[in-house]
């Protein structure tokens, strides 16, 4: 298992591995927002938290179609499936590797990008907390989508279509938590719900992912 994590991390950091692409995409989304809604700093600061969440979510989505498709194309997915590793564990590790290479950098970069959007002071803390709690769920749900579409040629668009509706609860509670935290409202419900979603999907989703991956490998 550890070998798989190390391999996936190595592959992500080497040339062509795509590390940093998600981060760059996140930056571009944040840059484009003022172009589309106008440069008024008061407006930007009101939507900053939401834009950061949406940008992070889209950046997570971007790298999902490579997550299993590459291993599928070169045959390693077949070989991993016949190895003495439980497929549920393999997919959990894949999700962890995806989060470490995509989700975590987004969490770290978000406060800096918040500056571009005139995010009010005090917002950075809540953006980091909410993304830290929420992005693991995005990776785990994303692995399910990747496993579902792995056998489909050019499944990237379909993957987005399937995964984005599943992201809705995470996005709502995540962005709500950050917004409420910033406004000084009660954050308890959204905090608990967001943490609950992340824990719940981390515990259960790999079983569904492994199930659909086995169906696809047949």
């Amino acid at each position, binding site marked *: 298992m*550890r*070998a*798989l994590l190390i*391999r996936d991390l*190595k*592959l992500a950091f*080497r*040339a*062509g*591995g795509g590390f940093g692409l998600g981060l760059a995409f996140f930056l571009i989304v944040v840059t484009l927002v003022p172009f589309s809604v106008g440069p008024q700093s008061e407006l930007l600061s009101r939507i900053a938290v939401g834009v950061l969440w949406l940008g992070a979510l889209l950046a997570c989505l971007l790298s999902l179609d490579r997550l299993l498709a590459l291993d599928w*194309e*070169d*045959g*390693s*997915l*077949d*070989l*991993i*499936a*016949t*190895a*003495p*590793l439980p497929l549920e564990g393999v997919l959990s590790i894949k999700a962890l590797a995806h989060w470490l290479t995509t989700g975590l950098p987004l969490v770290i970069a978000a406060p800096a990008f918040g500056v571009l959007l005139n995010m009010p002071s005090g917002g950075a803390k809540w953006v980091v907390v909410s993304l830290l709690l929420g992005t693991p769920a995005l990776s785990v749900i994303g692995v399910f989508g990747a496993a579902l579409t792995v056998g489909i040629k050019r499944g990237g668009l379909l993957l987005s279509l399937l995964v984005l509706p599943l992201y809705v609860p995470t996005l709502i509670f995540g962005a709500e938590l950050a917004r409420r935290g910033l406004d000084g409202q009660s954050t308890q419900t959204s905090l608990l719900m967001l943490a609950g979603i992340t824990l719940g999907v981390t515990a259960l989703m790999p079983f569904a992912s492994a199930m659909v991956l086995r169906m696809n*490998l*047949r």
Partner: protein
Amino acid sequence: MLMSVSNLTVARGGLPVLSGLNFVVKEGQALVLRGPNGSGKTTLLRTLAGLQPPIDGLIKGAEDMLAYAAHSDGLKSMLSVEENLTFWAQVFGQSDIEPAIDAFALPDLRTRMAGTLSAGQKRRLGLARLLVTGRPIWALDEPTVSLDAASVALFARAVQTHLGNGGAAIIATHIDLGLTDPEILDVSGFQADPETSSSSDAAFL
């Protein structure tokens, strides 16, 4: 006896291709699968490897005993030869990759990225992976594709050594590897009859 197969029916894309297969694989024995393209050799090997369920029949003893090598080698082009092998060794709970590197004449390529290897070298690396799995039964699908004569000899020697150590091999191949008295199984004698056999389509016919 390492593994036995009784009354096995395998299907490809919902249609049965082979049926009524019975064979056993013993220690030190090589089973060579023959048959024209599309006759179901790959499907049979994938079923034995547990990648797809059989439609009918029993496979005994294959679980966690079988190392499967498909058409594609499952190599990562951005990892070196050594890293690729080490990864598979760790996945299978092994640690020593030196015998595999020696057996397939890879010492000089050790630090090369797998992506820069030639097709034949990649194949050799893919086959070296079998040695680091530590599993007794090898299930090989056209293992000699893109290998030159010298590499085929290396491969044959590796298989022979594996058999000598009490292992076994099921090989779909058309060339004579010069193994000592291999069992030949021609699958063209077991073609499933699409008119009669059970499949997931049967309910609709």
